[in-house]
């Protein structure tokens, strides 16, 4: 019983993950756990390993050592990006990455969680169910009025939302979001916080962010990374009062 208690039910489980690039230790025995349904914020100075961590979870980078488990059983270090995406992990990049020469609608259609093989996509026809789902997502990301517009014509903030919408269409169990409010106006930032909380109602979300105001808005558990490992973990007030965090991150 005790052993079970010390390792709570996890959606994502990282233990002792290390990786080096050309001698530079990007992650140094990083361990942390995301529970099902949790919304978690990750902060840390530049070079703390936030993006590398996401690369490892999504299969872009292989760790040198350590364990990465999804839903307590799937070893993510043995899968590639496409596999991991199909398992139910979605990723939003730092720079908004949408298909600029497609319409907003097509962007969402491509992201829908349907069969992704060559022949299933060749002979795919939009079903009523899929149409409803896309309409619903358009509403969630507040882009219904721009559905037929090319994604290239959206504002920066709208592209970020479209990308979040594409991730929703993917129906992930875990959503990794890298700096969603970078370059957004204050109004857009506030709106994004609402959007993320809405999304986190039905799935786990991990947000990497620099904007402390935004994290305060989210009001969730915070993990502070520095030099490739966890420095402190807890509520935003607890973390921001930690002397190590102040010295490493906030103080600078």
């Amino acid at each position, binding site marked *: 019983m005790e052993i079970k208690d010390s390792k709570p039910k996890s959606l994502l489980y990282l233990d002792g993950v290390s990786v080096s690039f050309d001698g530079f230790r990007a992650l140094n025995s990083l361990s942390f756990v995301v529970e099902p349904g949790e919304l978690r914020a990750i902060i840390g100075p530049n070079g703390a390993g936030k993006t590398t961590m996401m690369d490892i979870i*999504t299969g872009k980078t292989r760790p040198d050592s350590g364990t990465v488990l999804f839903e307590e059983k799937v070893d993510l270090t043995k899968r590639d*990006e*496409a596999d991991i*995406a*199909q398992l139910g992990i*979605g*990723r939003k*990049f730092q720079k908004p*990455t*949408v*298909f*600029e*020469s*497609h319409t907003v609608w*097509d962007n969402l*259609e*491509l*992201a829908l*969680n349907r069969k*992704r*093989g*060559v022949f299933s*996509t*060749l*002979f*795919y*026809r939009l079903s009523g169910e899929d149409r409803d789902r896309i309409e619903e997502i358009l509403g969630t990301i507040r882009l219904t*009025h*721009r559905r037929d517009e090319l994604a290239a014509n959206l504002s920066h903030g709208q592209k970020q939302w479209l990308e979040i919408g*594409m991730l929703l269409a*993917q129906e992930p169990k875990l959503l990794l979001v890298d700096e969603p409010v970078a370059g957004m106006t204050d109004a857009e930032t506030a709106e994004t916080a609402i959007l993320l909380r809405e999304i986190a109602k039905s799935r786990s979300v991990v947000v990497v962010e620099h904007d402390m105001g935004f994290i305060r808005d989210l009001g969730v558990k915070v993990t502070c990374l520095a030099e490739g490992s966890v420095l402190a973990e807890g509520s935003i007030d607890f973390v921001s009062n930690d002397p190590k965090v102040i010295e490493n991150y906030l103080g600078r």
Partner: protein
Amino acid sequence: MISSFILRALEGRIVVTVCIILAVALLVPASNLLLSPDNALHIPTYVMSLMGKYLCYALLALALDLVWGYCGILSLGHGAFFALGGYAMGMYLMRQIGSRGVYGDPVLPDFMVFLNWKQLPWFWHGFDMFWFACAMVLVVPGLLAFVFGWFAFRSRVNGVYLSIITQAMTYALMLAFFRNDMGFGGNNGLTDYKDILGFSVQADGTRAVLFSLSAIMLSLCLVLASAITRSKFGKVLVGVRDAESRVRFLGFRVENIKLFTFVTSAMMAGIAGALFVPQVGIINPGEFAPANSIEVVVWTAVGGRGTLIGPIIGAVLVNGGKSFFTGAFPEFWLYALGALFIFVTLFMPKGIVGTVQAALANRKAVKAAARAQAQNNDTPSTQIQAAE
């Protein structure tokens, strides 16, 4: 399922283009065969064969557009697939010569007798059958593209590196085919064909049929390419071109998508080569020359990449220009080609069709704005909708 896949291909401009190509397929041979040589509208056989050659080049450019324009793979080795399709057809035509060759050997082509070979190499077997040769026209380029693509796309070779290795591939094949002991006629290649399916390759009637077939094949491949690019798969292709990592993180297997497209395109190029060889009467290793593959890129860029119709127009225009220039001012052709490419890159990056499309879309937008403006004067509320 299949019918909706094909129906989706039949968008306005594709239908118009197919109709034009099919009209050409009918009218040019008709004028050649039915009108007397004195008639002003009579098209001489050599002109018809020349136009047939352009149609094959157009099909090759269309094939390149599928991988380059839609999937973002700049292949500088598509000439290799074209040449391999051509060699497959050339081998069939060689086997049809039989004992009518200079040395009169019933089985061995002349060059093998000349090299003192006693028997047919294993890979020449089966090429006496037309259906087998036709199958090989698809299988050989397809297989090469599959093996090449399997390794290249799996190891995520991208961009200029991929272009360079496709170029190296066609160069290596050229050097290999130049060797006499490869068994493909070395330097001279395969030529002196007599007949195809029993019809003389020199006869006007055969030429006319080959011309029509080239046009029909071009239309079929255009419809197929349009169906592919307008399907959800086609949208994924454009996604791979514009934001490959996004496609990957959405859960698509990018390497399979690229592989399917590359193989399909290589097969189209093979068909083009197979139709080309009986019309020009020769295939030699020069067809593998890297410069040839680069020319295909120029045709595609001039016509407008990612438009399907553009490459067809580009191939016909540039090759028409080439025929004219090399006749009228032979020493200027290469300069003209170079200047054309620079002009297109600098001033028409979207090519002919792309530029026309952009102009039309622009005009439409201006008109729509004007209409919105006019409506705005009546009801202010519609203006907000239009602006959005």
